[in-house]
């Protein structure tokens, strides 16, 4: 007698969410200003985010394992849900960081938000064209972070629902095959 295959016995990953932990977005914040780093860190903590703050684009790339010094080994488990970076930084700018992230296969799906104290339209356009999720004028407001968080959580919900639907279809497919095989 053939054993009835239940979906649990099929090799399906249980990792349904890319969130760092339930309900917690992990944000990587990049800013060369100590004052702004302290401010954005608090803003994000108050908004129930897990925060990692670095002081330069170079350090951000190091953190993500994109600096060429390391291979991607060990960085697959790094769960970043959002990157927020200042635009004007010495060395590598936020715009250049944005481009590097969008060029990387591992991290290009992560939303990148640019922050700037200057409301320069061509700058904003350039960033959005390069794939920035949003462009925020400094000082960043709690309302901005809340809006970001809500839209990202919603995207997670949609992705989760799509995944569940896909599984349902797959499970139905297996069931149909079993029926046909008269098991």
């Amino acid at each position: 007698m053939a054993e009835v295959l239940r979906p649990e016995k099929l090799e399906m990953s249980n990792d349904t969410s890319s969130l760092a932990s339930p309900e917690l977005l992990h944000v990587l914040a990049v800013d060369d200003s100590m004052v702004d780093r302290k401010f954005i860190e608090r803003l994000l903590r108050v908004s129930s985010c897990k925060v990692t703050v670095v002081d330069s684009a170079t350090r951000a790339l190091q953190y993500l394992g994109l600096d060429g010094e390391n291979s991607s080994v060990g960085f697959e488990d790094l769960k970043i849900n959002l990157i927020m970076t200042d635009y004007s930084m010495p060395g590598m700018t936020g715009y250049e960081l944005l481009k590097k992230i969008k060029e990387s296969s591992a991290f290009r799906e992560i939303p990148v938000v640019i922050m700037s104290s200057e409301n320069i339209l061509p700058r904003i356009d350039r960033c959005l064209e390069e794939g920035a999720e949003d462009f925020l004028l400094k000082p960043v407001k709690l309302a901005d972070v809340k809006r970001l968080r809500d839209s990202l959580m919603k995207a997670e919900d949609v992705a989760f629902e799509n995944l569940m639907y896909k599984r349902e279809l797959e499970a139905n497919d297996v069931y149909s095959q079993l029926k046909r095989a008269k098991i």
Partner: protein
Amino acid sequence: MNTTIVAQLQRQFQDYIISLYQQGFLDNQFSELRKLQDEGTPDFVSEVVSLFFDDCAKLINNMSKSLERPENVDFKQVDSGVHQLKGSSSSVGARMVKNVCISFKECCDVQNREGCLRCLQQVDYEYKMLKTKLQDLFKLEQQILQAGGTIPQVDIN
């Protein structure tokens, strides 16, 4: 807890902080900072402004060096310093400092050394003035807490 003392101190605090807004030392961003503070992080605002004042001292010192010799002014460095100062003053709500930075940038753009020196002097004065005012404000906060009271939320609108 002596409720009269607490009430008096709270009133003093409220009047003082409102006067700082009304006189233009602080803008709305400072109240945004205060909103981020809670019982778990009672020193958040004082820590941020402390970082800001350190920043001011450092940037002003660097810019002063760049402006020192009339025949060899590094306006690019000064501009960078002003930009950073404007940014951090904006982040903490230091309105006067921020406003001086706007004029300062204009002097820098046209490479006006004399103008830059005047702005440098003014920005130095403004940040030190604000530092004194905020020290007094934080002292009042401490007195309220020590008397067993809570810090009033102040609506500046």
